[in-house]
């Protein structure tokens, strides 16, 4: 025993002078810059890798038609099975909006009938697309990342390569297509349920006159708003698919890595959704100002 412990000691001893050197001022500064350099490098590598992954996905999407039997199961898993959760969230967000805005709008006489415009505009422009995307990121994004990461650690990715199948083509392309093509439909569902929930609470519970409610809504919300919302959602869907699949593909470290990939996929997707939402909001505002100049 004593022999073993004596032999295991040297590494600990050699580590000490290293620490001593680091505690010097100049050493500390160098350590800081080295660390900063490392993280900048890691950041650039990650972005480069993600960009290359996106490029490969898009190329495989057009290079060859998707592998047989991969489209339907993924569309079912990603689209159909998200319907209940997205429908429910949409309904409640509409109802919550009605409850919250009603209190504010009743403070001024004659504002009541504007409630419909406020609720429906929020739902269709922002909350519908963002909520549908968030739910998709939570329900599908993390599951995708975990599934692909698990396939990676159990060598199923290698098995695909060995059987002459490109994992990006076989695994990523159908999932990407499902996310991009189905999220606008899920957003339509979220929008519809949100509008329904808002109207239900406003007209049935708070007693706002139904005709006025809908008339104002119709006046204030046009096809452009719906178009912007749905286009945004397609971009969100693409971001969710790429981020989640990329996390799964680059995971490492066994079971812990699978868990980390799943969590990261959701967190990064969520942040990306909000950033994209902001940028796309600016873009669409600029675009609409260009198409319909004021005055």
């Amino acid at each position, binding site marked *: 025993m004593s*022999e*073993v412990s004596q*032999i*295991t000691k040297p590494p600990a001893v050699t580590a000490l002078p290293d620490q001593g050197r680091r505690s010097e001022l100049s050493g500390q500064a160098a350590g800081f810059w080295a660390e900063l350099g490392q993280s900048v490098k890691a950041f650039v590598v990650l972005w480069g890798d993600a960009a290359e992954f996106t490029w490969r996905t898009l190329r495989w999407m057009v290079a060859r038609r998707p*592998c*047989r*039997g991969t489209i339907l199961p993924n569309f079912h898993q990603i689209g159909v099975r998200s319907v209940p959760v997205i429908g429910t969230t949409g309904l409640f967000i509409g109802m919550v909006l009605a409850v919250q805005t009603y209190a504010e709008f009743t403070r001024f006489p004659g504002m009541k009938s504007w409630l419909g415009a406020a609720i429906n505009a929020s739902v269709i422009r922002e909350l519908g697309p963002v909520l549908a995307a968030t739910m998709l990121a939570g329900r599908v994004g993390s599951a995708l990342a975990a599934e692909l990461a*698990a*396939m990676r650690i*159990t*060598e*199923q990715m*290698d*098995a695909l*390569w*060995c*059987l*002459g*199948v*490109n994992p990006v083509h076989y695994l990523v392309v159908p999932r990407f297509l499902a996310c991009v093509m189905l999220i606008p439909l899920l957003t339509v569902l979220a929008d519809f349920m949100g509008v329904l929930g808002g109207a239900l609470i406003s007209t049935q519970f708070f007693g706002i006159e139904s005709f006025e409610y809908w008339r104002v809504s119709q006046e204030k919300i046009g096809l452009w708003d719906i178009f912007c919302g749905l286009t945004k959602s397609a971009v969100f869907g693409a971001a969710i698919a790429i981020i989640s699949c990329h996390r799964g593909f680059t995971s490492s470290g066994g079971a812990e890595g699978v868990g980390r990939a799943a969590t990261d996929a959701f967190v990064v997707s969520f942040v990306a959704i909000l950033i994209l939402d902001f940028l796309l909001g600016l873009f669409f505002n600029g675009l609409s100002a260009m198409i319909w100049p004021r005055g």
Partner: protein
Amino acid sequence: MSTPTPAERQEAPARLESRAEAVRAPGEPGLDALPAGAAAAPSAQGNRLETKPVLRLENVSVQFGPQAVLRDIDLAIPREQSVAVIGESGCGKTVFLKVLVGLIPPGRGRVWLDGVELHALPEQELVKQRLRFGFVFQAAALFDSMSVYENVAFPLRQHTDLDEATIRQRVLQQLAEIGLGEEVLAKYPAELSGGMRKRVGLARALMLRPEIMLYDEPTAGLDPVMADVINALIKQTHERYHVTSVVVTHDLKTVRLVAQRVVMLYPVRRLAAGESQIIFDGTVEELEQAQDPRVRQFVLGQAGEYLYRGE
């Protein structure tokens, strides 16, 4: 059936024998092309087979971060040879296999497959060349989302236009060869025992009639009976399809049963500078007689000074 009864184990090789002629891959240079018994000869195969090597590694080095896994590996594997690659855990055996099949690019050096430099090929071409390999993974790597039938049919569905009836017949035939019946078809990988999973993995790897079979720890984690079944199947596959076999293992029983040539790798971190990572290359008989203490330690399964190294 988690483990086959003795009767079933007897049956599998018998079935293999009876179909030996029928399933020989067309266009495959069969035994006829070689002097009788050449493929099965346990010794001097390297000189006897005058075909040029089907696989050749030239100064192959692989490094993960700061850690060197393979260092300057030089190795030529003649066609239809059965090579066992042995060595302790962590000496780079699995990485060696993955370099061979083009899954891990070597940091330095080249891998030649029939005179084609594997890692210099464009991706599409590399994927095509990989179909010449059959890879049996350590944990089988069956696709969990597919049934056994879908797993075994997968290569055919991806690379042929065969109709469903033909695919089904080919799948059943391949499963019968490795001693599995129709009752496993609908099962999912999670419902199978380790030995069955490995056999399904072998069947899947054989579907496209590869020229080179690679096995990653084929008997690891199996009971002795199932390990023997797998060893027998490796030997049968080698003899029957005239494949080149590379078996990565630390099971000496596997080595004695299936290998014509043994190559032993040693962990790079414990090698002196300039020392070859291949510390043994010879026949099984020579392995048993080897004088190198590192080889002897492995063959005899002794801890040696290991305990005092603090690892």
